[in-house]
């Protein structure tokens, strides 16, 4: 795999299948996913709600709900297979110390009864083994790192005394307090205002460099993806349907679902006209999905899309897509005008670089 082979692989997910038992039925939330994560890169997982992006990262942290289980596959991290972990004791070696998480809503993820200083210090004591004065000093340093001023005073304050953006900074401080190798950000800015969002994204990018973090970013906002991601994995109905470098997926996307996601951006719409919208709804995951899950909503669907699941076709060394349209026998399709223009603009900007 050329360029990528020189990079160190941190996490490798292989043929993962995750199922949930629900009211006597079985739901397949993740359908045979394979994904590699390389050191220092920022991977964005994109998809609509219910596509399984949160389930995927929860399985990496051992946080699946009780009725969920890994049916098949491996999650390889440092010679360990996380898919085999069963007890909390196993997971405590990984959670926080190796892999940490920043969740979506900073309003609910902090303990309202403890000062924020104590909440950060708890992690410092537990994961870095510091005590007393040195733990306190480390906590203040973390607070400074996430851009909080007047740290001695702020240390003694409770979550309700902070705004949403500030709370998210504290959640981030707790996550990096454990010195993790991998940081998972699950929609970290969805609940925030745009101006605050810009600051938090900048902060995360800076911290990634400073601490040498590998990041997984879950989001449905393609603008956020454009800002932070090195690589993108597009998910649909529990499957990764396209994976590649950010520019490749944005400007040379191959899967019709990727096209549909980009086309429905208001930026690509013409005022006064109808905005491109994806017809129908995602498939019912209680039933077995046959062929390409997106086929019923796909205007470019071929007959085979309803019968056989497409394999990953290679577009470049780093870019793969699961669509029969890439098969040499497939007919050529004409993309919508707005999308063509978007792709062309991207290629032009790439050349200028």
């Amino acid at each position, binding site marked *: 795999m050329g360029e990528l082979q020189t990079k160190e692989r941190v996490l490798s997910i292989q043929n993962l299948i995750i199922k949930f038992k629900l009211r006597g039925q079985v739901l397949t939330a993740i359908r045979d996913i394979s994904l590699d994560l390389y050191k220092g890169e920022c991977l964005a997982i994109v998809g609509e709600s219910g596509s399984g992006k949160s389930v995927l990262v929860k399985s990496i942290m051992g946080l699946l709900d009780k009725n969920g289980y890994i049916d098949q596959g491996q999650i390889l991290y440092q010679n360990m297979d996380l898919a085999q972990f069963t007890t909390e004791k196993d997971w405590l070696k990984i959670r926080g110390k190796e892999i940490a998480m920043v969740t979506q809503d900073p309003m609910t993820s902090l303990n309202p009864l403890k000062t924020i200083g104590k909440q950060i210090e708890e992690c410092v004591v537990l994961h870095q083994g510091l005590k007393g004065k040195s733990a306190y000093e480390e906590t203040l340093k973390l607070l400074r790192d996430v851009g909080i001023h007047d740290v001695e005073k702020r240390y003694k304050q409770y979550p309700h005394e902070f705004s949403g953006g500030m709370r998210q900074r504290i959640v981030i401080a707790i996550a990096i307090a454990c010195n993790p190798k991998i940081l998972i950000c699950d929609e970290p800015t969805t609940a925030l205002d745009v101006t605050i969002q810009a600051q938090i994204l900048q902060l995360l990018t800076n911290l990634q460099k400073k601490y040498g973090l590998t990041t997984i970013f879950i989001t449905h906002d393609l*603008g956020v993806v454009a800002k932070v991601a090195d690589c993108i994995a597009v998910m649909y109905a529990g499957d990764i349907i396209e994976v590649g470098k950010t520019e490749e997926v944005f400007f040379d996307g191959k899967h019709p679902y990727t096209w549909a996601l980009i086309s429905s951006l208001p*930026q690509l719409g013409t005022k006064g006209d*109808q905005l491109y919208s994806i017809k129908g709804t995602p498939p019912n995951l209680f039933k077995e999905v046959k062929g390409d899950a997106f086929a019923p909503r796909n205007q470019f669907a071929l007959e085979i899309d309803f019968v056989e699941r497409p394999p990953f076709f290679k577009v470049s060394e780093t870019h793969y897509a699961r669509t029969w349209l890439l098969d040499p026998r497939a007919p050529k399709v004409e993309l919508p005008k707005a999308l063509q223009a978007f792709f062309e603009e991207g290629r032009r900007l790439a050349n200028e670089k």
Partner: protein
Amino acid sequence: MKNREVLLEVKNLKVEFGKGKSKFTAIDDVSFEIYKGETFGLVGESGSGKTTIGRAIMRLNEVTDGQILFHGKPINGKISKDWEREIIQKIQMIFQDPMASLNERAKVDYIISEGLINTKKYKNEKEREEKVRKALLAVGLLPEFASRFPHEFSGGQRQRIGIARSLVMEPEFIIADEPISALDVSIRAQVLNLLSSLQESNNLTYLFIAHDLSIVRFITDRTAVIYKGNIVELAETEKLFNNPLHPYTRALLSAVPEPNPFKERAKVVEIYDPSQHDYDRNPPSFVEVEEGHFVLANEEETARYREKISLGVS
């Protein structure tokens, strides 16, 4: 633009909450007009007061000072019973969260017709059912859905029910308070398209309250930017996005992540610092710097903005 009919006019609106020491001014001296048939966007951060303006128009928040006129007649403060009944029907609202805004214990049929029942806007049961049926069809749902409960529907469908509930009253003016921010990306486009086709077919006027600027740019004709209870800039949407003058507008626009990795990474995010204004010595007013383009600025700033426009740079 000048000769268009004004449907709603907000004049020097002021809304305060609390009394004495804990008094908080949510809206301070806000004025704007909404023309018939247009979509007027109101953007700002959380806490800026955009929802308070919407609620004041709906008569849900009391107005401390100023006037709100609908068809030239005041609708705030004490008004006659007949006029109140009329505006309750003519001005409707679509809420942000379709998961929270529908009565879980009522069937869709009742949810949609509750307004009709309250205003007795039908002669017999048959007419009411017919109205519900029409409203459901108009938002792309099946008439059979009337006998179901809200929990049987997805977020997008629930928002359609919310829209049907306001449509059934045959309104002229709809306040849409973040109608799509709780929805998924692929569903957003569907609901946006629905809102614009309904606008055409039912001759509606929208006040579109949102914080997602890319959507505001797509759907609105004119946009007002609100910051801490003051409108800082108001212009035709394209003009505002192409040539933002007020530093807060510029900061807000620059903060919106653009779905294009090359442009997004090359972009400089501006930060708004309110202390840059010299408003203690030289207080600002809401001035028209070019036709239809209003900015909150003092004399010195106005001169600077006008020069910028004449040079044609942003």
